[in-house]
């Protein structure tokens, strides 16, 4: 297992956000976490990347216990993240934001920069615009592009499709498949469960801080309970006007 999360508990002050979550991600997989608002998906990702301390439990990466390793060192070890809320450096230009992605790398990142520009031409157009003045979706592209620049072994994506236009959403999921094909492991958090399950190998369902279900993605896609709760009862029906 590349990433093993074992029975972690995490608190915000007195509030327990995670009450014993265990998740495993194998090298080369795309794993997705789905769940309602406030289920603890973001918290799980933040805990993996070292932004939240554990109350108990452990996180192992590549066989090593990293529960106490500071966040920046985890990045060096190969854990990259595109955070919820995008986390754009508002006063840095688009290029500088992207370069920050390569902060922890020793090798040349010029080629990757070109690739990101290819994926998101808008970013190339706006190279020198301050990150903070980009539109919501543009920022989302920037955040994903920047995460790609870290060249991680496992990439944590927190709702990458949020705020993106439909056309781009399709593209994002294509990109995820593509980078996975090239060897990057992905842990994906999505509200857009339908599409997430389509690109993922396996999935976990979180509810109020606990894992309530885990299975092959395709299995969940057809699980009636999951469909009802997370894929929208009338996922197809809702396309037309009226209920």
């Amino acid at each position, binding site marked *: 297992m590349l990433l093993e999360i074992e029975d972690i508990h995490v608190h*915000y002050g007195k*509030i327990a956000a995670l009450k014993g979550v265990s998740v495993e991600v194998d090298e080369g997989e795309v794993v997705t976490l*789905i769940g*309602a*608002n*406030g*289920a603890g998906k973001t918290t799980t990702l933040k805990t993996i990347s070292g932004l939240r301390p554990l109350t108990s439990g452990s996180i192992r990466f590549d066989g090593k216990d990293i529960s106490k390793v500071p966040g920046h060192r985890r990045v060096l070890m190969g854990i990259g993240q595109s955070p919820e*809320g995008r986390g754009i450096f508002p006063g840095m230009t688009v290029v500088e934001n992207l370069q920050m992605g390569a902060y922890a790398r020793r090798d040349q990142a010029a080629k990757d920069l070109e690739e990101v520009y290819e994926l998101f031409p*808008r970013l190339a157009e706006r190279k020198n*615009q301050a990150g903070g*003045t*980009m*539109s*919501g*979706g*543009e920022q*989302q*592209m920037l955040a994903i592009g920047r995460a790609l620049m870290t060249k991680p072994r496992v990439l944590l994506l927190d*709702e990458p499709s*949020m*705020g*993106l*236009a*439909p*056309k*781009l*959403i*399709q*593209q994002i999921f294509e990109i995820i498949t593509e980078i996975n094909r090239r060897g990057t492991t992905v842990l994906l958090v999505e*509200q857009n*469960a*339908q599409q997430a399950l389509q690109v993922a190998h396996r999935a976990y369902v979180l509810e109020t801080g606990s894992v309530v279900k885990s299975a092959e993605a395709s299995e969940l896609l057809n699980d009636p309970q999951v469909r*009802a*709760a*997370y*894929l*929208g*009862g*009338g*996922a197809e029906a*809702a*396309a*037309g*006007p*009226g*209920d």
Partner: protein
Amino acid sequence: MSETTAVPAEKSTGTPALELREITMRFGGVVAINGLNLTINEGEIFALIGPNGAGKTTVFNVVTGVYRPTEGQVVFAGSRIDGKKRFQVTKGGVARTFQNVRLFHNMSALENVMVGADAHHRTGLAGAALGLPWHRREERDGRVKARELMEFVGIAHRMEETAKNLPYGDQRRLEIARALATDPKLLLLDEPAAGMNPTEKEDLQGLIRRIRDTGRTVLLIEHDMSLIMGISDRIAVLDFGQKIAEGLPAEIQNNQRVIDAYLGVPADAS
């Protein structure tokens, strides 16, 4: 200018609530909105869609007085509101939510809504300091109204919680309740469904309808096509700050320009 013409939908009364006339908004070299004309009628749910960076949020910012348009006029309920102070715009009957939730994080949910309700209260310092009856009545009314609204948006059980501790979806609802508390005639919702799962989106859809049914006009930005197609009376599509299409949902769905610029595939294909 767009070549499409506005088709009044059957649900609207036909009287314009909000009119944007030749609005242009420039930021240095970036032209975020370019000569935009838009008319939203009273009582309709009007959706504004378009690719990322098309200028949708900027429209909201211009309407609510966050930005003063470089050119053009904003007319609301018959009078110009561009150049007015932001709080005056709100008092005048325009309220909004934000693309990135902006609650008063550390106040309780109820207090957040009460701040909205205060928009129409008059008590000044003296009234509050002396505890005049007028003031006490307003306080009571505000509280009652806030409670009702929280029930209305479906988060009555969260009343006393600190706003930032609410799950994201509830925060969005709370933002809506807060905006409703200012008693708007026109409600602007900026991607209210972002971060919600499909089930929650369906609930939201119902909520937006109920808001419209209380006699308010709703202007909505969303990227979720099933939601948009499900509830909008009319839709306008922006691209590069210009209106590339306007019309009924069914027309928009099949508009080739919209598909090329925005949808990628026809909306009902997903």
